[in-house]
C-alpha cells in the first residue's frame, strides 16, 4: 500500500510557539486515521498543513508520494469538513454541495445531479432548496460532508467533525462515518480531542502532545500499552505509577501504567500490594474505589454485584502481571 500522506520532520511555528515540532508521520491509503490530543497540541495544525492552509517552516509533506510544498489548497485533491462546517450562507444546500464542481466548470445539470446523489448518500434528499441557516446542526454537518465528498477527494480531512453535536447524534454519526469510509474506501483523517471517539473509530491513531507525536499505533496498542505517562493519562483513565510504587506492585523501578479495571480488590492477607480505601464513587455498572498504595493514589473498579469495602478499610490488590505495563518514555 502507498502512503496517502507522509510528514518528514515537519515543523511549523507561530512566533515562538512550536505548534508542530519535527513530526514524522505516515498515513496509509484507505485507512481511518485519528489525530488525538488536547487543544493546542498541534493536531489541527497538522490537518491544515495537509490541506494547505498552513505551510511548514521546515520538513516536507507528500500526498500520494508527491511533494506539495508548492501546491496551493485549491489544487490539492484533498477536501475538508470544517469544525464549524463553514457552509456558504448565501446559497442553498444544493449549490453548497455543487460548489466544488461549479468552480471546476461542470455544467449545472450534471452538478445538480451529483449534488442530489451526494445528499442521498448523507440521507438529506429533498433538502437541496434550503438555506444552511434553516438546517439543524446534524444536518449541516451532513451537508458539509456531502460538499467535501462531491469532488471525489483521495483524502478527506475532518476537523472535530462531531464536536458541535449532542451525545446521541454524535454516536449515530460515528457509526455512519465509519460505514461511509468503509464503503468509499478513501482515506479519512480526523482530528479530535475525545479519546473515546478516536479509539472507537480509527484504524490507527496518533496522540499529540506539545507539537510532537507522543505515540502512534492501533487503538488497542495505545490504550493498553501507552508509551508515556502523558498517553496513559490522556487515553483512558489509567493509574500511572511512579517507580517506587511500581516496585510495590512487583515490577521494575520504572514508571508503569495499570488500568483500574485490571485491579481486583480482595482481602488484605497474602496480597501484594495492599492499600487503604480513601474514596468511593458509584458508577452504575460498578463502583470506582480510590486507594492509597504506598503513598500514591490508585484507582480500582469493583464490578456490580461484588462486595464494596468500606472507606478506611485495608484491602489487598490482585492483578495479572501482564497488565502492568512498564512505559518506555518518561514524558
Amino acid at each position, binding site marked *: 500500500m502507498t502512503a496517502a500522506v507522509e510528514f518528514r520532520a515537519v515543523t511549523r511555528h507561530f512566533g515562538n510557539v512550536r505548534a508542530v515540532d519535527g513530526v514524522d508521520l505516515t498515513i496509509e491509503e484507505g485507512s481511518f486515521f485519528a489525530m488525538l490530543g488536547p487543544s493546542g497540541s498541534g493536531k489541527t495544525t497538522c490537518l491544515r498543513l495537509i*490541506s494547505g*492552509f498552513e505551510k511548514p517552516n521546515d520538513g516536507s509533506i507528500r500526498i500520494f508520494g508527491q511533494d506539495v510544498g508548492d501546491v496551493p489548497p*485549491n489544487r490539492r485533491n484533498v477536501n475538508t469538513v470544517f469544525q464549524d462546517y463553514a*457552509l456558504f*450562507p448565501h446559497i442553498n444546500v444544493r449549490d453548497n454541495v455543487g460548489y466544488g464542481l461549479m*468552480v471546476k466548470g461542470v455544467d449545472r445539470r450534471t452538478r445538480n445531479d451529483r449534488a442530489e446523489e451526494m445528499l442521498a448518500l448523507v440521507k438529506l434528499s429533498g433538502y437541496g432548496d434550503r438555506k444552511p441557516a434553516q438546517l439543524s446542526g446534524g444536518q449541516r454537518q451532513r451537508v458539509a460532508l456531502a*460538499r467535501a465528498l462531491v469532488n471525489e477527494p483521495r483524502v478527506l480531512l475532518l476537523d472535530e467533525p462531531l464536536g458541535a453535536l449532542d451525545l446521541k447524534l454524535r454516536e449515530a454519526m460515528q457509526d455512519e462515518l465509519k460505514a461511509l469510509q468503509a464503503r468509499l474506501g478513501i482515506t479519512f483523517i480526523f482530528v479530535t480531542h475525545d479519546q473515546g471517539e478516536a479509539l472507537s473509530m480509527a484504524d490507527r491513531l496518533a496522540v499529540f502532545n506539545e507539537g510532537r507525536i507522543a505515540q502512534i499505533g492501533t487503538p488497542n496498542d495505545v490504550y493498553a500499552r501507552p508509551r508515556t505517562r502523558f498517553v496513559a493519562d490522556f487515553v483512558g483513565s489509567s493509574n500511572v505509577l511512579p517507580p517506587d510504587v511500581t516496585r510495590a506492585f512487583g515490577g521494575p523501578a520504572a514508571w508503569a501504567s495499570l488500568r483500574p479495571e485490571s485491579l481486583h480488590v480482595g482481602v488484605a492477607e497474602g496480597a501484594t500490594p495492599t492499600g487503604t480505601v480513601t474514596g468511593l464513587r458509584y458508577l452504575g455498572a460498578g463502583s470506582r474505589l480510590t486507594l492509597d498504595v504506598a503513598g500514591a493514589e490508585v484507582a480500582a473498579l469493583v464490578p456490580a454485584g461484588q462486595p464494596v469495602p468500606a472507606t478506611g478499610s485495608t484491602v489487598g490488590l490482585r492483578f495479572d502481571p501482564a497488565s502492568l505495563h512498564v512505559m518506555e518514555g518518561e514524558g
Partner: protein
Amino acid sequence: MHSDRASLSLRASAIAGLLFLHLPILLIFLYAFTTEEKSYEFPPPGLTLQWFGVAWSREDIWPPLWLSLWVASISTILAMILGTLVSAAMAQTKFFGREQISLLILLPIALPGVITGMALRSAFSIMDIPFSTWTIILGHATFCIVIVYNNAVARFRRLSGGVMEASADLGANGFQTFRYVLLPNLGTALLAGGMLAFALSFDEVIVTTFTAGQQSTLPIWMLQELVRPRQRPVTNVVAIVVFIATFVPILIAYYLTRNGSDIAGSGK
C-alpha cells in the same frame, strides 16, 4: 419584569429625544411655505406653494446639484474600492503595523474637518495644484473611506473565516472565491456603506469650502443662499427635496444591514 418592558420614564425620554431631533426639521418644512422672502420671522406671516415652482425654475440650482451628485458618486466609488481593499487586508492576517493602519483610516474622520480641509488646501498650494472638481473629490473620498471600511470590516468579522478556506479547499482559485463567496456576502455591507458615504459627501460643507476653489457644490450653494438671501425659502425647498431623496437610500441601507450587529453609517 426587568427585561421585557421599558420603564415609563425611559420610554418617555427616548421619545422626547427623538422629537428633539426632529423639531428643527419640522421648522424647515414649515418655512418652505412661508410668504416671507428675505429673512425669517416667527410665526411666518403667510403660507404659499410658490417656492417649489421658483426652485424648479432657478437655473443656478442645477449646476451645484449636478456637481454634488458627480462628486458624491466618484468619491463613493473611490472610497468603496479603497475601503474594501483595506478591510480585506485587515480581515486577513495579523501583520506589523496593523494597529497603525486602523488609526490612519480613522484619522480623517476623527480630526475636525477644518483640519482636513486646511491640510489639503496647504498641500494643493504647495504642490501648485489648481482647484478643480478633482480636488473636491480628493477631500471627500478621504473621509468616505472610513465609512465603507467600517461597514465592510464588520461584515468580514461576521463572515466566518472558514468560508473562504472552504472555497479554496473545494478547488476555487482566489478570483473564484472573490466572485462566488466574498462578493455576495460582502455586497450588502458595501452597498450600505456606499450609500452612506454618498449621503455624507453630498452634504459636506466644512472640508469642501477649503478644497472647492470657484465651484459650488449644493451645500456651498446653500451656504451662499443662506447668508445672502434672495428667496430664502428656496433653500428650504431644496433641503426638503434632499431630505426626501435621502429617505429611501437610508431605508434601504437599514434593511441591508439590519441583521448584523454592524450599525451602519456612524461617522461624518
